[in-house]
Every structure is written in structure tokens, then in C-alpha cells.
């Protein structure tokens, strides 16, 4: 794995140009978002609730159209097969309760009409990546919360996506499970070389995982500042307890606090404005 700084020069995967989003009820969710995403990056979107982090992911995935601005995919081959080039992990595991783990993970391939023979191999690989090989025949309700999230990640990985979008995937999990999954996610990321956009409101999680953090502020959602976390990978618990990590956390916390102070001022200025904040 290259050091985090090398990622700054890898080829461009996608670019957001002046993306904004207004919801039908008049809420201004995002305003004038510009950023580039390079191949192999682990980018975190960090910000308070209501800053439109999830909306950014949905726009990138094509689930929501931006009200203005555009999402550019420089490599047309990526864009053509886009549906299989993106994996999405929601905050909830979002599994089909009526289907076994195997059938949940194979879903993207089945929808893509892949032959059953090649499906089995791919699903096994994906389950192996998240350490759930033995649970292929289990049903979601027989699994713990952390295991369900692993299934969800395996499903996102099964198409071997170039871009993995994760919307606060571990927010609902307990601390211990969360640490474990953070480590496993880093391993998967390094093993597959995929690009990750990770939405979180945890400073510690974002600093632990990311090569770059975009700190967002709310009302309307926009990028407040950008931080490069150029600690080398692989990262593990040694990194998590290092002074370097603590320093990054301090800087990131300060940036987030500034973003939120900014946001409060903006909110005060907008008092009496009919645009409600805090959506999403």
C-alpha cells in the first residue's frame, strides 16, 4: 500500500462541480460542493447531523439528482458500468430478512444476471473478506448487529466495486464491535484497493480510517475545510494510541468545532428565515 500522501496524485475517480441540492419542501441541503476523489483514497465526510453528508453519498450513487452542479466521472468506462462499480453500505444493514446471508450477498450479482456458477465463488470470496464464511446459510435475524453489518459490507464488496460508499455504517454498533469493524474495513480496503467515501460524525473514527477528511458544516451543507491525514497505512491499534493520532484528532476536532461555530452564526443570521435546517 502506498503512503497516504501518494494517494493525492493517483488518477481522478470522480469530481463534484458546484453540486447543490434543495429538497422539494424548500430545505437547502447542500450548497456549492466541489471536491475531487482520487482512486484508492479513503475519504471521510465529517460533520454534524443535518450537514447533508448522506445526501452527498446519494448524489454520488445516482440515487438522488443534484438540483444544480454535476458529478463528473473522468474515466468513461467507470461511468458506463456504474451500477456495478459502486457499493453502498447504509446506516442500517438493510438486509432482506427473508433471504439467507448467501442470498443477501449474492443479490447484486443476481440482479446483474450473472451465471450461478460464478456467483458462488464471488460470494464466498466476499464472505471470506468479512469473516462470515461459516454463516452463509444463516438468516439475518439469527445474527448480531455487527455480523449483519459485515453481511452488508460483503454485499457491497461482491461486485468488486471501484467506489465504496458508506453512510455512518457503524454508528449503531457498540464501541468494541465498532473498533473491530474499523480494523477489518481498513484491511478490506487495502486488500481490494477500492476507493471509499465514508460518512461519519465521529472525529476518532474518521482520523483512524481516512487518508483525507472533508469537514462539513450545516445550513446549508457545505465543505468547511479539508484535512489530510498522512499517517502511513497499515494502521492498527498502535496508531490508534499514538501521539500522532492524538494530534490529528485534536486538529480535526478543532476544525469540526469551528465548522459548527460557523454554522451557529449562520443559523443566527438565518433566524426568521423560513428554511428549516437539521434535515437528515
Amino acid at each position, binding site marked *: 500500500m502506498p503512503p497516504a500522501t501518494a494517494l493525492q496524485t493517483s488518477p481522478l475517480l470522480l469530481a463534484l462541480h458546484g453540486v447543490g441540492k434543495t429538497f422539494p419542501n424548500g430545505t437547502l441541503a447542500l450548497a456549492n460542493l466541489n471536491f475531487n476523489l482520487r482512486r484508492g483514497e479513503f475519504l471521510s465526510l465529517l460533520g454534524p447531523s443535518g450537514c447533508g453528508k448522506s445526501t452527498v453519498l446519494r448524489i454520488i450513487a445516482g440515487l438522488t439528482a443534484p438540483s444544480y452542479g454535476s458529478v463528473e466521472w473522468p474515466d468513461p468506462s467507470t461511468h458506463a458500468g456504474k451500477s456495478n462499480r459502486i457499493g453502498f453500505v447504509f446506516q442500517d444493514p438493510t438486509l*432482506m430478512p*427473508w433471504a439467507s446471508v448467501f442470498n443477501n450477498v449474492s443479490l447484486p450479482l*443476481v*440482479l446483474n444476471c450473472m451465471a450461478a456458477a460464478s456467483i458462488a465463488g464471488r460470494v464466498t470470496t466476499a464472505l471470506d473478506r468479512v469473516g462470515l464464511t461459516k454463516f452463509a446459510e444463516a438468516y439475518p435475524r439469527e445474527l448480531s448487529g455487527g455480523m449483519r453489518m459485515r453481511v452488508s459490507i460483503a454485499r457491497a464488496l461482491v461486485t468488486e466495486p471501484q467506489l465504496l460508499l458508506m453512510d455512518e455504517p457503524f454508528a449503531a454498533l457498540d464501541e468494541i464491535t465498532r473498533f473491530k469493524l474499523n480494523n477489518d474495513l481498513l484491511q478490506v480496503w487495502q486488500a481490494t484497493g477500492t476507493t471509499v467515501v465514508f460518512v461519519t460524525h465521529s472525529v476518532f473514527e474518521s482520523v483512524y480510517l481516512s487518508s483525507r477528511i472533508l469537514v462539513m458544516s450545516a445550513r446549508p451543507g457545505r465543505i468547511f475545510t479539508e484535512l489530510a491525514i498522512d499517517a502511513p497505512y497499515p494502521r492498527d491499534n498502535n496508531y490508534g494510541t499514538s501521539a500522532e493520532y492524538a494530534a490529528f484528532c485534536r486538529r480535526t476536532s478543532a476544525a469540526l468545532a469551528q465548522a459548527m461555530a460557523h454554522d451557529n452564526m449562520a443559523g443566527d443570521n438565518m433566524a426568521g428565515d423560513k428554511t428549516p435546517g437539521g434535515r437528515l
Partner: protein
Amino acid sequence: MKAAASIQERYDRVLRIALPVVVLALGLLIWEAIVWIDKIPPYVLPGPRLILRTLIDDWELLSQSLVVTLATTIEGFLLAAFGGVGLAVLFNQSRLLEYSLYPYAVILQVTPIVAIAPLLLIYLPQPLAVLACAWIVAFFPVLANTTLGLHSVDRNLGDLFTLYGASRGQLLWYLKLPSALPYIIGGLRIAGGLSLIGAVVAEIAAGSAGAGSGLAYRIAESGYRLNIPRMFAALLLLSVAGIAIFYALSLLNYLALRRWHESALEQEA
């Protein structure tokens, strides 16, 4: 603590089975006693023992009628099941079709079947009319429940299917129908009982005019002949048929949902 709780549970379970049985036995005993003490003639009120006797003596006749009624009920139920689910799926795929036809499905449902049955008997041959009645009453709960179920899809799962470019057919087959399954089965459980009611109503409406030989027809016929014990025996068979249908559909519910749905989870615990 835990052992005490489990004893309590077992005690509860025994009571739940034993109490209704005791009540039934007590009721039958009092019934038999009243008939015996007051010397009530059988053409007014037969005792339980006589009813059982009649059931055994008339078994050949009654069992044939049972088969006829059950066959109508099951045919009506199956038509309602496939018709209801099929129409709900069509409605789900085409809003125009839903807008055009749904009001008439409602009208069919709210018009009392007893009032429709005589008309059907005029225009259709009797077995077909009876079948139509069983279908009409049973079909709406399946349609309504399936429609509700098809609309109750998890939004995130819907997004996921969109993300992976699922076709309409895939969306229906892999997401909407499985999501709707608990609702569909709920509808089927109601439809099972209702199709029996529909069949009985139509047979009664056909009355002596019909050439049918279903259980309800037997009840009407025995009434005209003042063969009250046979009326009771036929009624008993109808109840048993209703109970059997109910449990058969409960079993279907359990088998289809036990591994994943909360409703079936409770039964398991």
C-alpha cells in the same frame, strides 16, 4: 427463578388446552342433561349423543356433502388467492389499471354476498354460482392485503435495487413479493374462512331449487324435513371444516415465515 418461570409457563400451556376442553365437556353434559330431564323431543332439540349417532349413521351421505362443500371452498379459495395476488400485482405495475378497477373490487366486497347469490344462481349453473360466491367473498382480503404488502417495501432496500439497476420484474420478484409475503398470508388466512362462508351462503341460497349436495344444502334440506339431528351433524362438520382450514393456513404461515418474520418468531419461542 428461571425454573419457576418455566414451570409457570408449562402450567399456562396446560391450562390453555385443558380449560376449553373442560368447558366443552361441561357444556355437552348440561345440554344432554337438559334434553334428558325435560324430555325434549329430538325434532326440537337433539342431545349431543343423538347428534353423534346421526353423524355416524348418516356418514355416507354427510361425507359426500362434506367433500362437495370442501371442494367448492378450496376451489374458491385458490381462485381468490391467485386472483387477488395477481390483480394486486397488476395494480402495482399499472396505476391506470388500479384507478380503473379498484373501486369495483370494493363495490363487490361491500355488497352483501347473500344479496348477490340469488342473482348469480339465475345466470350461472349452480356449481359455478356457488364457486363464484366463494370467490367473491374471499378475493378482496387477498387483494387488499397484497396491495398493502407491495407498498410496504423497505426504502433503503428499494434504493439498493435501484443502485444495482434492477428491472421491474426483478424488483417485483426479489423485493416486493417477498416483502409482501406476510401480508399475503394474512390475507389468505382471512380468505380461507370467508370462502367457506361464501360456499355455504350460496348453497343455502340455492336451497331446494338446486341439485347440489353440499353440507349447507343438507342443512337446509334437513330443516324442511324436520331432521334436526342431521342439521346439527352437518353443522358440526362445517365447523370442523372451518377449523381445519384455519389450522392449515396457520401451518402455511408458520412454514413460510418461521425463519425470518417476527410474527412466526413468537410461536417458536
